[in-house]
């Protein structure tokens, strides 16, 4: 059996399917019962599909159809089918889809809890190390030996710090 369509606003299965033709263009919206109710879809007098579509157009960066996550190849259609994303980078790729969805789903849209300090520290050390190594090569090439010596010292310091935060 095929997977049921997921609601456009949350990951629940969609039970309300709407089609409206605006300016000769077909717009389709799939919603779950609760979102349909919250958006007033069940009240025929008060509802306009335009509101929902407008909301989508207010997205920070609307996601064009057919966009694939550059890291894992996931598409928006895959999300509709599975209700799950393909990889962490998908949250960057499909930002325009995620952000409006969060509103009804969570208490806020900004993380306020624990932060993986060590992992972040490790990443910034790694970035620093990469930059220093480039600087060192450059300094040697241009025969700026004082700069080169300073880079090497700093590289050693960073490497030592790395030793205390082993990477996987």
């Amino acid at each position, binding site marked *: 059996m095929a997977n049921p369509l997921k609601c456009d606003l949350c990951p629940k299965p969609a039970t309300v399917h709407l089609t409206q033709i605006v300016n000769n263009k077909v717009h389709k919206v799939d919603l779950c019962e609760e979102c349909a109710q919250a958006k007033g879809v069940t009240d025929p007098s008060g509802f306009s599909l335009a509101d929902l579509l407008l909301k989508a157009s207010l997205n920070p960066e609307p996601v064009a159809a057919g966009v694939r996550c550059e890291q894992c190849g996931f598409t928006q259609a895959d999300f509709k089918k599975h209700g799950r994303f393909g*990889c962490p980078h998908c949250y960057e790729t499909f930002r325009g889809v995620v952000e409006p969805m969060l509103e009804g789903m969570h208490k806020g849209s900004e993380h306020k809890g624990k932060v993986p300090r060590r992992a972040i520290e490790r990443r910034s050390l790694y970035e620093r190390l990469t930059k220093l190594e480039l600087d060192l090569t450059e300094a040697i090439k241009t025969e700026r030996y004082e700069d080169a010596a300073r880079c090497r010292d700093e590289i050693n310091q960073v490497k030592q710090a790395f030793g205390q935060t082993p990477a996987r």
Partner: protein
Amino acid sequence: MTIASLIDTPSELTDSSSSKTAIVLMTRIRLARNLAGTAFPGWAKSAQREEIFETCRAAVAGTAPMKRSLNATIAELSELERQILVERHLISRELSGAKAGAGLVISKDQAYSVMINEEDHLRLQVLRSGFQLKKAWNSITELDSALEEQLDYAFSPQLGYLTACPTNLGTGMRASAMMHLPALVIAGQMEKVVRAVNQLGMVVRGLFGEGSDASGSIFQISNQTTLGEAEEEIIKRLGSVLNTIIEHELNAREKLMEADAGKLFDKMGRAYGILQHSHLLSSGEAMNLLSLIRLGIDLGIYPEASRAVVDRLFIEAQPGHLQHAQKGEFEPGQRDLLRAARLRGEFANFARPDFPFMNDGKN
């Protein structure tokens, strides 16, 4: 540690005897975590899933709480072993049916369990008997921080820990309590409680999670949202909801006793009789009878020490545990016979009810 010895060791849940467990049987917190730059388990190719599994297994098994832990792939476990782990709340039903490259690490005392490649790369869980949200949080955040030394988690400053499903973004935390609420069920107030709890942003489910029924009047209450609040705030909010529910349950008990103690005692006395003498018990009926006995313990009709026995039986009356105790195959039709026999055995030596003096209409 082997799966056989783990199964034969009472778990954190089945061996509790603290009086703190009167209404809240157990507290559980789980954290969803994923590796940076790696496809989520549902999207990863099978070779990649194997790789993720090995990376996570090594990191998890190396942490202090997981010293001498059990670790296994799902494929290594028999169907019965998986079912027993589900009945003990150590793994989810989803994991027990997962494809290759999924597995688990469970601590020796069964307080910690980590699922690998379920919906997320890592699902860390800690389980404590009784109402111990803060203690549970301290334990799980410690395990999480230890893992962070080894693994690069997928994290965004704005969205927090990145999870396969957007409903778990942010803290990736689900804190839950398993509550025994017989008086609210008898008084028909559960529906009202569920609605009120939902409005406070918490969810009520049955004993075995989503879609399961609430046999035995046991419910799981957990936070619904994970983004926009710090872990401590969520826990504080959940804690106050739980305290309110406890208060309502205690009030409902008092009212039942005031209104018609005779009727309540009759239910508890009959439950005792059936558990001692019946020959066919379905899982649902057994759970409901045990629930009445447990209520009797809280009301002082049976000794406090019996609560641990009832809590153990809640688990051991489940099909997987019954089959394991029986050692060997049996027909599904025999299950109710076996369950009744098991409970008859346990209740043959169970303390007799000590009902307070009742005015039976004389004088």
